[in-house]
C-alpha cells in the first residue's frame, strides 16, 4: 500500500495534475475567502466554507480521473495485480494519495483562519475545526466516488466527465427534493434529503456538529471503496 501511495502521490507532481488542482483550488478558495470574509468585514468563515463545496464538484474529478483508468489504458495494472499485494491495499493506497493532495488543498483554510484570528479577538477555533472536518469528510466521500467511477472506464476524460456529473447530481439532490410536491411521492423528498451530501454539510457550516452526518460520510467512503475493489476483482473473472 505504501509503495502505491508514494508512487501515486509522486505521479500527481510529475504530471501537471497536482499543480493544476492545487493552483485552481487555492485561487478559488482565496477568492471566496476574500469576498465572503474580508470584504464582508466579518470573522465568520462559514460562508467561505460553504462556497468550497461547489469547487469540489469540479476539482475532485481532476484528482480521481486517472487513478484507475490510466492504469488500465497503459496496462500497468498488470504489474499491480500480479504483485504480491491485495486488491484492497491497492485501492486504499490510491485513495489515500488522492486524499492527501486534497487535504493539502483544503489546508489553506487554516491560513485564512490564522489571518482572521489576528484581527478578531472573539475568533473561535472550534467552528473552524468542525467546518474543516466536514470539508475533509465531504472531500473524502467525493474522492471515493471519483475513484469508483475511474475504475469503471479506461478513459480518463470519460472518468472525469462522469464523476463531475455524478457529483453534480449529488449536489442537486436537495433542490430536486424540493421540486417534488406530488402527494403519492411524498416519501421521495424525504429519501433524497436523507441522501443529500449538501444539507449535511450546510449543517456543519451553520455550526452544528452532527455525529450521524460524520458517519454518513464515512459510510459513503467505505461503500464506494468497497465497490471499487469489487470492480477490480470482477475484471479478473470476466
Amino acid at each position, binding site marked *: 500500500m505504501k509503495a502505491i501511495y508514494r508512487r501515486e502521490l509522486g505521479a500527481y507532481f510529475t504530471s501537471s495534475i497536482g499543480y493544476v488542482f492545487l493552483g485552481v483550488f487555492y485561487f478559488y478558495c482565496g477568492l471566496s475567502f476574500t469576498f465572503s470574509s474580508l470584504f464582508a468585514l466579518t470573522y465568520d468563515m462559514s460562508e467561505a466554507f460553504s462556497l468550497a463545496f461547489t469547487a469540489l464538484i469540479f476539482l475532485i474529478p481532476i484528482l480521481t480521473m486517472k487513478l484507475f483508468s490510466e492504469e488500465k489504458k497503459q496496462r500497468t495494472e498488470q504489474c499491480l*495485480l*500480479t504483485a504480491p499485494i491485495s486488491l484492497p491495499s491497492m485501492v486504499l493506497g490510491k485513495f489515500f494519495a488522492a486524499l492527501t493532495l486534497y487535504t493539502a488543498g483544503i489546508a489553506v483554510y487554516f491560513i485564512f483562519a490564522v489571518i482572521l484570528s489576528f484581527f478578531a479577538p472573539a475568533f473561535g477555533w472550534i467552528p473552524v475545526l468542525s467546518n474543516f472536518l466536514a470539508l475533509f469528510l465531504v472531500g473524502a466521500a467525493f474522492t471515493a466516488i471519483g475513484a469508483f467511477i475511474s475504475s469503471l472506464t479506461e478513459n480518463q476524460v470519460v472518468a472525469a466527465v462522469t464523476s463531475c456529473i455524478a457529483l453534480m447530481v449529488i449536489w442537486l439532490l436537495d433542490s430536486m427534493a424540493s421540486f417534488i410536491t406530488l402527494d403519492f411521492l411524498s416519501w421521495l423528498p424525504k429519501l433524497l434529503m436523507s441522501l443529500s451530501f449538501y444539507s449535511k454539510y450546510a449543517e456543519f457550516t451553520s455550526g452544528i456538529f452532527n455525529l450521524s452526518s460524520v458517519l454518513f460520510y464515512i459510510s459513503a467512503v467505505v461503500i464506494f471503496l468497497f465497490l471499487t475493489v469489487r470492480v477490480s476483482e470482477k475484471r479478473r473473472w470476466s
Partner: protein
Amino acid sequence: MIEVKNLTKHYGDKRAVSNISFTVDDGEILGFLGPNGAGKSTTMNMLTGYISSTSGDAVINGVNILEEPVKAKSFIGYLPEVPPLYVDMTVRGYLNFIYDLKSCKQPRTQHIEEVCKLTKIFDVKERIIKHLSKGYRQRVGLAQALVGNPPVLILDEPTAGLDPKQIIEIRTLIKKLGKTHTVILSSHILTEIQAVCDRIVIINKGEIAANDTADNLSRTVSSDHRLSVRIPGDKKEIMQLIKAIEDVKYIRADMEREPGVYEYEIEAAEGKDIRRELNKVLAENSLPILMMRTADLTLEDIFLKVTMGQEFMLNPEFSAKKEKLNQEEVSLEDLEFKVTGIVKKHMEKERQKDSEYGGDKE
C-alpha cells in the same frame, strides 16, 4: 515448481484455454510455443493471478494462486506481453517502486544496480521511460520481473522488439537465469525456444498439442520416411520413375543445386523405408544418386505438423510454406551473424583506438 491442472478459461462463450495440464520442475526452462491467439498469454495471465481461471488449479511452489494469491504472487516475476511501465518515471524510480511493491528484502541500491547491469540498462537508469526505445523498454520490463529475485520467472515473449544482438544477449541471460530459477517462456519464434528451453509445450487453439523435450519431440514426430535426394538427369523422367515406386506418397523437385542436378523431396507412407527400392529403380535406369539423406524434422516441421495436422504435411502448400519459413529463418540467422560480426569488428577497432590513444598519453 509449477503445477497446472486442468486449467480452463472461458471468455463468454469463447473457450480461450481448455483443460491444460503440465508441470515445470525447479530449475527447468519451459518453452511455450504456439501461433498467435493460441492461448499462451491467457495461460500465463492465469498462472500469475492477473486473471482467474474458469476452472482448474495453478499451484506455484505448493501455493494455489487462487487460494493464497498474495503468497503465490510473491514467488513470481512476471513480464507480460506489453511491459507494464509507468512511462513518466525514470528507470530507477520505476524499479524502486517495484522494489517497494514487492516488499523486497535485499539491500536496495545494490540490488537494483545488479538487476540493471544484468539486463544492460545501467546506462539509461536515470532516463525517463517515455523517452526510451522499444528494446530498452522491453529490458526494463525484464528488469522489473527480476527485482526481488523471485524463484519463478514467467516471461511472455521476452525478446519481442529487440534487435538481433539484444536477442542473443537476452537468450543468454535467460539461460543463465534458468540455472537458478524456474522459467516459463513463451514465444512464437521457434529457434528461440529451441535455443533456450529444456522442454517445450506446444499449445494450439487453447489445448496442449505436444509436451516434451525438443529432442524427443523431433524423434517422436520424426519420420525416416522423408528423404532428400540429389539426382542428375531429366527432371520429369526422374519424377515419374520415383512416383511409380510403391509407398511413395509425394515427390517434389526442390531446386537445381548443381547444373543439371535437382534435389528431390520424397515422402513415403508412414513407417515405410523406400531407400533400397529407390536405389534399385534408379540403378536400373543408370541414374546415379549424388546424395541421399533422411529429412530430419526441424522444430518448424513439428510445429506445423502439430498445429496444422498430419494431412497438411502432405499438401504441396506445406512445402511452399516451409520453404518460406526456412528462408526467413536463414536470413534472420545470417543477419544475426552479420550484425554480431560487425559489432565485434567495431568494438575491436574502438579498443585498438583506445589503446593507441592510451599509448600516446603514456
